[in-house]
């Protein structure tokens, strides 16, 4: 479903973020990408959705060469992913409900069905009672769950999450972990960048480990 072959990424300015990385991931897998800070985890996720393009090598998702995708095709490719960003990227000028509704609006989902799906997603992450609240009034853990709701509301085939337990206490982190596990159990391929050892121990996923931009272990499927 996903394959990296000999992927290198050098940022303008000369920093080599990824170096000859090859691996593949099958549909339905739960994969953690681990490594020290600066190892290239975020870069790897960004290459999957063409936020960054590889300097060399190819990134294939569902038979599409994402690295060579035309500008116009990128938005449609991104809709098959659910994205949880390291820095949340919530819109603080609109309600919890409206934040979750965003991916459906973008995909042109008709209003009534959309509202039903938004509530289902909020219910799933335990935030239904906050649908009219503004995101700023939520705790860190709740904001993170809000991000999860926005990521899965349009039922993507692949969930990408970058440090989803970033600044959370263990209990909150494990809640997020359970959510990831439940999505994965219904068939969503999940790729999570993290260095959260508790989460690793709890979910026992396949681990792809990076070190200074090179693949350290976990390349073979």
């Amino acid at each position: 479903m996903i394959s990296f072959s000999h992927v290198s990424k050098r940022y303008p300015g000369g920093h080599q973020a990824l170096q000859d990385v090859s691996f593949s991931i099958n549909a339905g897998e739960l994969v953690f990408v681990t490594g020290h800070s600066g190892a290239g985890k975020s870069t790897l996720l960004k290459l999957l959705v063409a936020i960054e393009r590889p300097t060399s090598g190819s990134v294939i998702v569902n038979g599409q060469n994402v690295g060579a995708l035309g500008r116009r095709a990128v938005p449609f490719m991104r809709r098959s992913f659910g994205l949880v960003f390291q820095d949340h990227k919530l819109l603080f000028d609109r309600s919890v409900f409206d934040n979750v509704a965003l991916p459906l609006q973008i995909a042109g989902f008709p209003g009534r069905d959309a509202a039903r799906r938004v509530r289902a997603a909020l219910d799933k992450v335990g935030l239904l009672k906050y649908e009219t609240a503004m995101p700023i009034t939520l705790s860190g853990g709740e904001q993170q769950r809000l991000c999860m709701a926005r990521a899965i509301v349009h039922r993507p085939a692949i969930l990408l999450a970058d440090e989803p337990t970033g600044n959370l206490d263990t209990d909150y982190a494990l809640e997020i972990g359970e959510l990831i596990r439940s999505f994965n159990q219904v068939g969503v391929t999940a790729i999570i960048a993290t260095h959260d050892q508790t989460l690793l121990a709890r979910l026992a996923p396949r681990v792809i480990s990076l070190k200074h931009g090179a693949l350290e272990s976990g390349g073979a499927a």
Partner: protein
Amino acid sequence: MRAWLAAHAGGFGAALERIAFAPLGSALNALVIGIALSLPVGLYLLVSNLQAASHQLTAAPQISAFMALDANRAEIAQIEARLKQTPQIAAYRLVPREQALAELKKSSGLTDVIDGLPQNPLPDAFVIDAADPSPTALEALRDEIRQWPRVAHVQLDAQWARRLDAGLRFSRMVAAILGTLLGIALVAVTFNTIRLQVLTRREEIEVIKLIGATDAFIQRPFLYFGALQGLAGGAVAWLIVSAGAYLANRSLGELSHVYASLLQLNALTPGDSLALLLTPASLGWFGAWLSVSRHLALIER
């Protein structure tokens, strides 16, 4: 097709929300645009009306021949006979001085003043239609009649009508230039409004782009906003010009019933009105498009 309609309805709705979010600013923008647009449009309306009136005049150029004040009946009959014999004259009409005075009394409302006059100050006059309405033929005829005995003054109506027409053509050009300049200004103003909107919404644009929004989806609310702002400006201009024409007609009507049909300002035609609404709307759309495509390119990824 339905998805396309829904997408546009969504963009339109988002634009309305942005207007509703800043109602005062939006109203002021529409007002400024409308006032600016009402200048060339009002001038255009005035010129078109005067032009129609002056064409009526130039289409049937007439010669007015005024007799000397002390010309007697025999002398007038003599002139009338000469007019009858002159082949270059198609028709003529005598306006006796008593009738002219009565008309003046009726139309001017100066009954008391006129009644107070010791004698009728108006001469007898002939209104003459030439067989050949070409300017040279008219001028030759005028010069001939001028030499007839007891004819005090001969006036060719077409002359001032032609001058008026030339003046009106010039005014029309001024209106067109003014309209073009204001059209450009409207595009520039919209460009700037949208630029500021894109900048203040930069974060939102980045986020929705990351989660799969197409450029078209992002642009639509801005485009509709530009179009609606132009449309509102056009509507304000329409109101101003229509109200202006209405008020002008009321006072013109009071001024003189005689001239009313000539000096009537016809309101904007449905076609003109439609153009007055759609042109600023398209210019607003265009300005927004220029702006949003330029500024979205700066927010890459």
